[in-house]
């Protein structure tokens, strides 16, 4: 396999991989590292490309696993850094402003924050389904869980977001 096919088949996946890595690590720099690592790994296995059904799913699987590894390693080193970061972000969503546009922007930020505070599995499922528009089957393959588990995770994620979002909408803004 050549560098040309890497350029056309693998490199364009960078943003999708980046968003997934970002959703898992919640850190831009880490996510970028993971995408790079993923691509180099895919490149190092170019002899096997012919056997791969979907390059996209293959890359997403590698990216998913690398990101989870990174998070696990990070949480072992510093267990508080992620929490403090998300708390900082949360503060922005309560800067209420009378203007409609600002309110909507705050709401948007709040939804993003809510998504980031979901349990890891739900977060990943939601990212792949709601943002990337993937079928349940593909998500199950990438995450190495059953389709039913994917559905359950997505159901819970949407319910949590709905509940918290509506709650915040009532009292927060």
């Amino acid at each position, binding site marked *: 396999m050549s560098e040309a096919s890497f350029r056309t088949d693998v490199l364009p996946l960078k943003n999708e991989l*980046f968003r997934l890595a970002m959703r898992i690590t919640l850190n831009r720099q880490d996510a970028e590292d993971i995408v790079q690592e993923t691509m180099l*790994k895919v490149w190092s296995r170019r002899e096997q490309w012919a056997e791969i059904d979907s390059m996209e799913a293959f890359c997403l699987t590698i990216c998913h696993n690398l990101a989870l590894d990174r998070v696990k390693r990070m949480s072992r080193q510093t267990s508080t850094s992620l929490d403090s970061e998300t708390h900082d972000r949360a503060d922005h969503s309560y800067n209420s402003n009378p203007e409609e546009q600002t309110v909507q922007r705050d709401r948007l930020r709040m939804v993003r924050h809510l998504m980031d505070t979901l349990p890891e599995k739900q977060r990943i499922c939601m990212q792949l389904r709601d943002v990337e528009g993937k079928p349940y089957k593909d998500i199950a393959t990438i995450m190495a869980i059953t389709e039913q588990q994917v559905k359950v995770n997505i159901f819970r994620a949407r319910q949590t977001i709905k509940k918290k979002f509506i709650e915040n909408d009532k009292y927060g803004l």
Partner: protein
Amino acid sequence: MDYKYIEQLLSRYFEATASLKEEQILKAFFAQDDEELPQALRQYKPLFEAMEKGDVLGTDFDDRILSLVSNASERCVVGNASKRYNVVGNASERCSTDDSLLIPQKARIISLQERFRPLLRAAAVVAVILTLSTAINQSFRNDNVWTDEDQIAHYQDEIRKAALAAATADSVLLYSEGISIKADSLAADTMHLAPTGYLE
């Protein structure tokens, strides 16, 4: 305007029973401007807006990856989390060896007994083999002891012993016979002598 359909889709969305197409319809619907949305549904707009594909990587990332990749065609690149942009590697075989991360692996706690199980298993196999080989060896050795020559020699020995025994028995018999003959002749002598002596 009637938004029943959208409301239906919304509830299906939250129940996670909506199809991908239906979810796309919702996304497209809420992508409209605020003013065009009915007041009751306006609150859901940020929900779907948050799901848009926002974050992207710049072109400098492409350049970096491509340069790393062209480097890696000659040398093997091992992407390392802690060493950023670090190009390691000399042996090209290493490229294909590192596939542990491809298969999702779950960490699990292994008890001491489980950890030593392979070792114990190996020990058990060795023990069985040793026992069997000893048993086989022994049976072979027993067979070897009784070669034909040995058997013949053994039988000859037996025969010789038997012959010796027979000979001994004969001689004993002869001896006892001899004794009885002697006794008879002695008696006869006395018988002979007595009358003569008595007569004399």
